[in-house]
């Protein structure tokens, strides 16, 4: 899908809480001796949730865009861990950054790809001149049932992108995007349930791999580009193994995956995962380099984006903390404190 006018990324920001737990500590509690999927995963503090994480990423994105909240005409938040079942995250973010009241705001849900779908909607609004600037936030504070395989990876984090129609001093431009969606029962959470369920029969090949590959290939075909035209590939990252494997199947070497791969140290940040990976690449990419971004959301679907870095990245990058700086301050929790912070201890 190529808009008649390209949308430009003028701000980005990512945030990961300071708390973390090592997978070997979780394995100790549950007596697991088999290999663990990631080294460590991020954990929210006792006063954090998807709203507070979203606000922090939004503020960092505004700093890089050098904009006020009142300049933002749209706020879309993609998440599957809403503090309220009914009451939007986006309105609290809008109030906290000073974007209210003349702003379009809504939360979107499509498992881990909600934010990239929101990004496609925003591309349409920005490139058609409906709004001057809009923001997309991907955020999650994922929960895995204690002892379940998901507990080893369910992490947290947030990432925000600000899009604008201006091309002058932009961070990057979005050439085109594609989507590939089917009804696949790989992972779900019913209303009122705290923890999700997953069907191993559909995890992996029929879900993650199929949807990412089809979305990416459709995009490359539309643009007439090949894997060698890209300097980086950023993927949804539920663990370490899957993104490296799917990149290889698409013809991308490991070296193009690693710069945007944070799952080894933050786990799976769900709706934030692919956008945090993109922010990590923005922290180091040079003007002219091309990035392929492909999300995956259970249920299931993938969105792929072709992004070209612009000159503005050089000057805007250092206006807010980079992920390397954010991840420098980390507190390792034992399982007891992890249980306390995650609300697993009940009265």
């Amino acid at each position: 899908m190529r808009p008649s006018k390209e949308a430009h990324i003028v701000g980005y920001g990512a945030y990961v809480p300071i708390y973390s737990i090592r997978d070997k500590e979780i394995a100790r509690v549950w007596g697991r001796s088999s290999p663990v999927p990631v080294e460590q995963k991020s954990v929210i503090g006792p006063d954090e949730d998807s709203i507070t994480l979203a606000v922090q990423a939004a503020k960092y994105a505004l700093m890089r865009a050098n904009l006020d909240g009142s300049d933002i005409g749209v706020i879309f938040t993609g998440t599957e861990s809403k503090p309220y079942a009914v009451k939007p995250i986006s309105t609290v973010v809008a109030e906290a950054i000073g974007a209210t009241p003349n702003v379009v705001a809504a939360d979107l849900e499509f498992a881990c790809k909600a934010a990239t779908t929101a990004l496609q909607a925003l591309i349409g609004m920005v490139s058609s001149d409906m709004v001057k600037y809009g923001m997309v936030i991907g955020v999650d504070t994922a929960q895995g049932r204690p002892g379940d395989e998901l507990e080893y990876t369910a992490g947290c984090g947030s990432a925000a992108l600000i899009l604008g129609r201006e091309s002058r001093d932009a961070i990057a431009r979005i050439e085109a995007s594609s989507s590939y969606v089917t009804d696949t029962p790989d992972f779900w959470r019913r209303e009122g349930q705290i923890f999700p369920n997953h069907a191993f029969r559909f995890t992996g090949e029929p879900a993650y791999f199929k949807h990412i590959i089809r979305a990416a290939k459709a995009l490359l075909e539309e643009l007439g580009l090949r894997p060698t035209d890209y300097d980086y590939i950023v993927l949804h990252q539920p663990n370490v193994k899957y993104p490296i494997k799917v990149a290889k199947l698409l013809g991308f070497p490991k070296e193009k995956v690693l710069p945007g791969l944070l799952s080894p140290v933050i786990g799976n940040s769900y709706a934030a995962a692919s956008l945090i990976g993109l922010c990590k690449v923005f922290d180091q990419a040079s003007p002219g380099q091309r990035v392929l971004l492909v999300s995956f959301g259970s249920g299931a679907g993938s969105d792929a984006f072709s992004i070209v870095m612009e000159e503005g990245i050089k000057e805007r990058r250092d206006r807010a903390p980079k992920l390397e700086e954010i991840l420098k301050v980390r507190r390792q929790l034992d399982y007891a404190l992890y249980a306390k912070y995650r609300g697993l201890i009940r009265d």
Partner: protein
Amino acid sequence: MGVPSVPRVWREIKYKYNLIGSKCVKCGKACYPPLTVCPYCGGKEVREVKLPERGKVISYTIIRYAPRGFEKLVPYVVALIELVDGTRLISQLTDVEPEEVSIGMEVEAVFRRLREQGNSGIIEYGLKFRPLRR
């Protein structure tokens, strides 16, 4: 924080989310939370002002027996903070262990959950302070 009240939380959103205080037109001093009369000179002409989000710890105390709604946060620190413009306010500190806090420590504001009104009530948000990150 008083008795849980939805209208009170709604009224305070502007001040708690964005650190809006009051500044006396007569003596020029600012205070937080905002007041209609200047506590320093008694001046009745005050205007709202956006306060800076950085400062330093002047003094602090460690809370081990918390009031209702804060029980799960113990132990936590409540500090007297002097912002870079000289305004002093009281705030909870976050992302820090009590033994790491010291007088003079530089801090910055962050948006956090302040309290929830039970399991089915509203969640109160606002600014706390954490050790300066950059």
